């Protein structure tokens, strides 16, 4: 019988890892200080699975990705934890170029089942690499899938899907959502990569967003609810992206705000604007609005609370496109 409990996003990720490791001995976990469990999602896994399957790596990001890369080529299903996703830039070539291009470039003959995990997100005052959200950069580079959950349910389901995928998948999670609790069934389930989710239905305007910004967008939607009916879509997976879900929504609402915590230029929101030009131009009654991190480095201190997209900025954008 299916039970549903409230657990945190970190615990949901841990359940996903544990279930997949129980299911398949080829799945193993490596990363910096994951035996101790710097974050909740790896804490205690070494006790169940032992040091053979839960490995601390040196501070060697290219070496760590390479270990996963090579092991995946040899048929294992590694899960590499970067701690902070921004550290992945130390392995820029492996992450942005080589992982995604391996399969295609060598004749589409051989899979690369490798999962990368990293936390990201603005709002903890520490600036720069500890905040970097790499999905804008990742979607630019072909061949690597990218997802970011906003709820414990999605976190568990997407992480299991990532591990079972035969391609490199970068599973991002937002540091500010680590402790967020939500319902998660005890029965096994998967959230397929490439499927967006309508988190709030509405008719006047669509807000497309992800991660922490789903919650900010829901707040903004609530704030304007007496005047404007907002549909909030959680991207969940940036690549592949669920364009049909978006077009369905905009067919109804005719207006679109993209809320993206990542740098504005040439990022996910820009791509959506371009795709709307190409696939949904006639659906629109107003130009697509972006609410992003301004095009400047992520500052720390007291600034990041208002430099990132906030419910107030989202609300203003919603009102603006509905004028």
């Amino acid at each position: 019988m299916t039970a549903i409990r409230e657990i945190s996003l970190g615990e949901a990720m841990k359940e996903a890892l544990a279930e997949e490791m129980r299911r398949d001995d080829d799945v193993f976990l490596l990363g910096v200080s994951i035996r101790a469990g710097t974050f909740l999602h790896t804490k205690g896994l070494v006790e169940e699975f032992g040091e053979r399957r839960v490995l601390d790596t040196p501070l060697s990001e290219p070496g760590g990705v390479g270990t996963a890369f090579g092991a995946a080529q040899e048929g294992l299903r590694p899960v590499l934890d970067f701690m902070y996703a921004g550290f992945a830039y130390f392995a820029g070539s492996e992450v942005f170029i080589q992982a995604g291009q391996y399969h295609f470039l060598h004749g589409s003959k051989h899979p690369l089942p490798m999962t990368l995990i990293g936390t990201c997100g603005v709002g903890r005052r520490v600036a720069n690499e500890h905040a970097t959200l790499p999905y804008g950069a990742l979607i630019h580079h072909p061949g690597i899938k990218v997802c970011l959950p906003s709820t414990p349910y999605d976190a568990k389901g997407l992480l299991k899907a990532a591990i079972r995928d035969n391609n490199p998948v970068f599973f991002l999670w937002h540091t500010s959502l680590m402790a967020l609790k939500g319902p998660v069934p005890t029965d096994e389930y998967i959230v397929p990569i490439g499927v967006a989710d309508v988190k709030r239905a509405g008719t006047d305007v669509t807000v497309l967003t992800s991660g922490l910004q789903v919650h900010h967008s829901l707040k903004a939607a609530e704030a304007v609810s007496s005047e404007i009916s907002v549909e909030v879509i959680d991207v969940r997976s940036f690549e592949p992206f669920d364009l049909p879900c978006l077009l369905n929504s905009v067919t109804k609402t005719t207006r679109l705000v993209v809320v993206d915590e990542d740098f504005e230029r040439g990022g996910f929101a820009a791509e959506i604007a371009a795709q709307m030009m190409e696939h949904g131009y006639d659906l629109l009654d107003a130009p697509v609005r972006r609410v992003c991190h301004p095009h400047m480095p992520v500052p720390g201190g007291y600034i990041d609370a208002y430099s990132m997209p906030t419910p107030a900025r989202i609300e203003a954008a919603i009102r603006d496109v509905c004028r």
Partner: protein
Amino acid sequence: MPTKPRGASAQETLTRDHKRLLYRNLVRAMTLDRMMMRIIRAGKMVGFYHEGGIALAPGVAAGTFLRRDDAMNPHYRAHGIAHMIAKGVDIQSYVAEHMGRVDGCAKGRSSFHVSYPEDHIFGWSANIGANFPPCIGYGFAARYRSTDQVVMNCSGDGSYQEGRAHEALLMTANWHLPVIFWCENNGIAQSSALSDLFPIADISRLAAGYGIPALMVDGQDLLACGEAALAAIAHARAGKGPIFVELKTLRSQEHNVGGLNNEGAHTRDPALMQKWRDTRDPLTLATARLLKDQVLTEAEVADLQLEADREAAAIEVHCEASPKATPSIDELMAGVYAP
């Protein structure tokens, strides 16, 4: 553990003034480290803090004998507080920066990314190991301009696991650059024991592969650290190329405030860490030694501590009074590019 030169050619001895200076800087560093801990525990800091604890003698020694125009990469531990104090930066603006205030050295926008270009300390990245590539450039600039500046490149054992360390060792050795690899080896990186990450115990064994001379030093012994610093600086300043100094030190607390204190799956033994604090505190050891050698009197020791306490208190008061930095987005956007 004795200072054990392995191939290093320069030898220097500490004068009485050197010893007093080192001691004063250590008192200040450890006092300010405790103040930083008070501030973060009181919720007044805007980001991380990674306590220095009993591991600050190497940092003090690294900074004390540098000239202002010598470049330095401070170790990130204690956010370089010992290194910076000893090099003589305006430490109040360092604390203000950690508190997100307008008179922080980076205008309150950087959290812990402090920077003193006028003191040849050029900020840092949150990526461990990011110190290595630019240190080649500092040394290169000195050689290019035929100055006798040296570069003090400080970081932990963990940082030497990054490939970037190899490239810096290789390139500085190849070009004979005046760079000191100051490796503060506390045997642990975040929550993993060095023995679990690194095949050998002495990081400095890497140096020989590049033909770089190496020293090994007891990092709890302030005077040994100071002697090594003098020797290394003299070596680099004399144009003899890079030198590697490994300072064995200890971490007797968790990685960062609110973080774990594990080595892999295992909690670190609190009794052992207490023993280190009791028997291996560099200030306690240095006090005993300098009193015995009559370099300092009991009264001077007490005065120095008082002075440091006053400094810390004054900084804290000043920073709390300083307004929180909340510049407009437009103002920030205008600061992305240099004019």
